[in-house]
């Protein structure tokens, strides 16, 4: 993102400011009122998609509010053509919802689409199963708190936050809570969000016939992206709205790499799947707010972006995505994802001390597999887990002067 190319004129010219009334005329935080600014681009120039069978139609890029701490960023987004804002009960311990509520109260309720996420109360982190502490009452109480913070009587989409197993998707008290919220008019549509075991979760959501929108991690660095594309298409064909998140895959090329992700290429990659109806990149500055408009207007990957994505795919070989599916298949409960991270430090970046620190932190012993004659651990990327563990664990006992 070039600072040089960004000034007040270019932002105002390139913003998609859809309607005639979309002016920068609202009161800003700090108390002053700015003069209206004429806008140039028409609504028809934005790529819009229907969000499943919800009846909602949105620009393909929406606003993930999770890291936005400047209320004026939300105002500029509202005034420049963004329509959909995504927050959650837990972001900044509720301050994120409060900030949104404070700004959006000045706009007509039908001029934006708002989604929030409420987490189930109790979950087994290893299995992703919801536990008895997840009750209908606890969930609905949290929703009421969220609505109060948002200064609204309803949201447009209510997600169950962070589901990662079929059991959780089908958990009766949760389904009851979501459906009750809809019956009570506290949400127009219900859905779930997922960023772990997504294919299993999405498949289960299709089967229940209850969820109307799915917010899912989907990016070019996922090892199971082909599987994801298939299950997303299936959900979309079933009339479920699909919202993409984590398009930037953490912002780095590979989990621990220093190479930044090409923001526009990554966003376009997700949106080139027509079953992804909109995305919610976390927007943190005005430059990004502006850049997103170029994606909204044109989803075609440039030759440079195509080359970047191709090269990035080739680099994936060394990276463990931390899906943790292997841990359940290891008889000795070895922290395999962490060891793979150490492997990447050692063999990818030649940072031997950093690699050993990771192993030491996780109490890995030299040759942790020595008691197993056959390795049962399975990796969805096809890593030879046994060989890699044997290689990297040697570093634990290695003296410092070998690690320089």
């Amino acid at each position, binding site marked *: 993102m070039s*600072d040089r190319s960004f*000034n007040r004129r270019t932002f105002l010219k390139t913003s998609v400011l859809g309607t005639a009334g979309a002016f920068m005329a609202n009161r800003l935080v700090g108390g002053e009122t700015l003069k209206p600014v004429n806008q140039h681009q028409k609504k028809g120039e934005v790529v819009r998609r229907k969000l499943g069978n919800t009846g909602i139609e949105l620009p393909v890029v929406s606003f993930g509010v999770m*890291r936005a701490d400047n209320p004026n960023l939300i105002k500029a987004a509202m005034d420049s053509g963004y329509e959909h804002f995504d927050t959650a009960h837990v972001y900044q*311990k509720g301050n994120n919802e409060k900030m949104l509520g404070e700004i959006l109260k000045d706009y007509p309720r039908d001029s934006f689409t708002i989604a929030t996420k409420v987490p189930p109360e109790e979950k087994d982190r290893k299995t992703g199963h919801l536990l008895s502490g997840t009750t209908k009452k606890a969930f609905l109480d949290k929703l009421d708190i969220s609505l109060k913070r948002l200064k609204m009587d309803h949201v447009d989409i209510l997600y169950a936050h962070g589901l990662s197993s079929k059991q959780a998707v089908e958990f009766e008290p949760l389904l009851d809570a979501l459906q009750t919220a809809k019956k009570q008019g506290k949400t127009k549509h219900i859905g779930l969000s997922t960023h772990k075991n997504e294919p299993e979760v999405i498949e289960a959501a299709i089967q229940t016939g209850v969820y109307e929108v799915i917010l899912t991690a989907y990016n070019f660095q996922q090892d199971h992206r082909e599987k994801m594309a298939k299950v997303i298409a299936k959900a979309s064909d079933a009339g479920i709205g699909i919202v993409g998140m984590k398009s930037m895959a953490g912002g780095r090329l590979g989990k621990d790499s220093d190479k930044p992700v090409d923001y526009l290429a990554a966003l376009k990659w997700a949106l080139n799947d027509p079953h992804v109806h909109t995305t919610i990149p976390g927007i943190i500055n005005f430059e990004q707010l502006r850049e997103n408009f170029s994606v909204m207007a044109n989803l075609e990957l440039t030759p440079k972006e195509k080359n970047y994505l191709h090269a990035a795919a080739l680099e994936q070989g060394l990276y463990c995505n*931390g899906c943790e599916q292997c841990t359940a298949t290891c008889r000795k409960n070895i922290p395999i*994802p962490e060891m793979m991270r150490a492997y990447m430090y050692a063999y990818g970046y030649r940072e031997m001390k950093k690699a050993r*620190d990771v192993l030491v932190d996780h109490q890995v012993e030299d040759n942790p597999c020595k008691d197993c004659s056959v390795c049962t651990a399975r990796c969805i990327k096809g890593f030879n887990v046994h060989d890699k563990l044997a290689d990297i664990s040697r570093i634990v006992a290695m003296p410092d002067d070998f690690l320089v």
Partner: protein
Amino acid sequence: MKGKDVFRRTALLIAALFVLMLQGFSEDKKDELFPRMEGWELQVGDQVYNSGNLWNIINGAADAYLSYDFQKLYTAEYIQGQDSRLKVYIFEHSNPTNAFGIYSQERSSDYTFVNTGAHGFKSGDAYYFITGPYYVQISTNDQGLADAMDALAGKIDQQIGHQDELPATLKRFPKKGLVSNSEKYIAANFLGYSYMKSAFVADYKRDGNDFRVFIIHPQDPESVNSMLDSYLEFVEYPKPKDIQGIFKVEDPYNGDIRLYKGDDYLAGVMGAGEELSKEYLGLIRDNQ
């Protein structure tokens, strides 16, 4: 040759002992952060979370923590009987300023503030405080355990090594009209511009005026100039050779801002008139 061998072996032995010591220290750290509490069973979480897997435990809230240079998350549960549970998360950031930063994003005037650590607040089912680079969060689903949470917070504070210093820049904010507990540290993208980096901000109420004051005080004083250059170019301010005194810029997204550039800092007032702005920028200058 023999002497060299002995020297080599001794060096290797010392190195190996160092590795073991390192291993012990890191292992201990996880266990040493959590004190024992009489009548409660302590279960320290096996997994120490890092920047690569923080999403697995706090979902999308992780993004904000990562922007404050999160390092590690240690977890534990204190259990009494069948149902009484206190869940503890200790977030370790790279330095106390970043710990204050994420804490300041999450605190709210609705809470009751406490003197634990450098600063803290609590509600019926949660107790949060910062001490040094650590941000400690205790929660429960039983509001009847408030006293136990208080006691545990005090013990953890002592266990970690109580540190009550807040970032020094906060002392430069004038006290007059300061909205209590409104100070924040923004780690990056201040005002919504990527080149503006980090800033401390505080809200004020004075004679019916609501306004905000900020101080950008980077470790590298030279970066103040580059930030200011980029900003003035953006707001199309006709920059003279050397900026002196207080000057006003018209920011299209953040309103009118009055700025003062000191030797190694930049201060600003948003949402106040000229006289009030001058007064506060003068107070900041005098608070050096």
